[in-house]
């Protein structure tokens, strides 16, 4: 088994009892991470609440190496550099400090995922008031910039980019070459049902270890 990838402070978490979280998922940061009912976190998914709160809605699926939160500069290096930064050297100090900071900085630097959101392998969602609407699929290796607001039922195709601060309207399909179009298929109910079935299966296949993060 690979060594624990836990680096940096352990964040305070708020888990629903019906959540499935793999043992190899990585949670770091100082702010609250809350995950609502029936969501699935795959191994090696990374949730970083160092900059602000991370909220994940109902029936979301976060795949391998997806990065949710973390500083806007660079997804993977942020967690490492944060360890070296002063003020968060010890986990206890960071948690104690977060109580005071949370009131000002939690909201502007947060990440919020709606319900039925799928974050595919290696996708990055940067912190900074970022919001992803219900039913949206963030494709493999896609990147949602800091402060971007992605609407409901959007599809970000693999390796597409939503730039920081951008507002993407509901039902938009974002293509990797920068083009956009609107999804008029009206498949949202069907997609949600399919996702619910997928979660049912994943709950049986992935052994959940929420106690590791509590």
């Amino acid at each position: 088994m690979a060594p624990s990838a836990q680096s940096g402070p352990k964040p305070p978490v708020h888990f629903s009892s019906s959540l499935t979280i793999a043992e190899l998922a990585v949670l770091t940061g100082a702010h609250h991470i809350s995950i609502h009912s029936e969501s699935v976190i795959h191994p090696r998914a990374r949730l970083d609440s160092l900059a602000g709160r991370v909220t994940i809605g109902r029936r979301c699926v976060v795949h391998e190496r997806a990065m949710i939160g973390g500083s806007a500069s660079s997804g993977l290096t942020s967690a490492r550099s944060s360890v070296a930064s002063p003020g968060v050297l010890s986990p206890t100090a960071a948690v104690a400090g977060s109580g005071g900071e949370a009131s000002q900085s939690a909201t502007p630097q947060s990440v919020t995922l709606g319900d039925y959101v799928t974050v595919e392998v290696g996708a990055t969602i940067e912190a900074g008031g970022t919001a992803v609407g219900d039913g949206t699929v963030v494709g493999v290796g896609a990147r949602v910039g800091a402060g971007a607001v992605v609407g409901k039922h959007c599809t970000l195709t693999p390796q597409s980019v939503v730039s920081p601060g951008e507002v993407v309207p509901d039902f938009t399909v974002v293509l990797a070459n920068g083009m956009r179009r609107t999804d008029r298929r009206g498949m949202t109910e069907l997609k949600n049902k399919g996702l619910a079935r997928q979660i049912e299966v994943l709950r049986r296949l992935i052994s959940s270890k929420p106690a590791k993060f509590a």
Partner: protein
Amino acid sequence: MSSRRPPRGEYIETDTGNKVARKATLVGTQNIMLGGKTVIQPDAIIRGDLVRTIHPSSQSGGNAAPQNNTAISIGRYCFLSRNCCLRPPGRLYKGAFTYMPLRMGDHVFIGAGSVVQAASIGSHVHIGAGSVIGEFAIIKDYVRILDGTVVPPNMVIPSFSIVAGQPARVIGEVPEGGHEAFELRDLYKTVGNNPQPAPH
């Protein structure tokens, strides 16, 4: 230099010649089949735990033979680069969701950071770095996929194709006599706990 066998190398070398990095993430190892002489580099992820949950035979009795639970089967001389991710494709089948096995032939190279969710990959396939292979894609033999290609779900790539773009398109054909370039025997020797220099 004095000890013949170093206590902890970067790779675990099995009797069948597989070289698996200690830092690779293999989930559900009992469902992963390695054909031998396969290299798995650090930080690669293989999801063997996503097994098929619906079996076609299960409706008719189903107690004839022990069910084959292989989620990912990999042939000989395959090379999985750093940060790549192999996971079985999943879909709705007769109203229920199930994962399907991912099969790979021999001499398959998977570039760094690629995500593979294909249904099957033939032999002598080269997948460039940063590529995304969509769910249930079928890749035949002697295919070269260039760096950063996004192969859409369910695409079938015929033999001897060169594929690139987002979404992927067949942009050319593997030239006559270009088949030796797919051989990974020499590459296999250049990694491991006592790597050999690449021959010229």
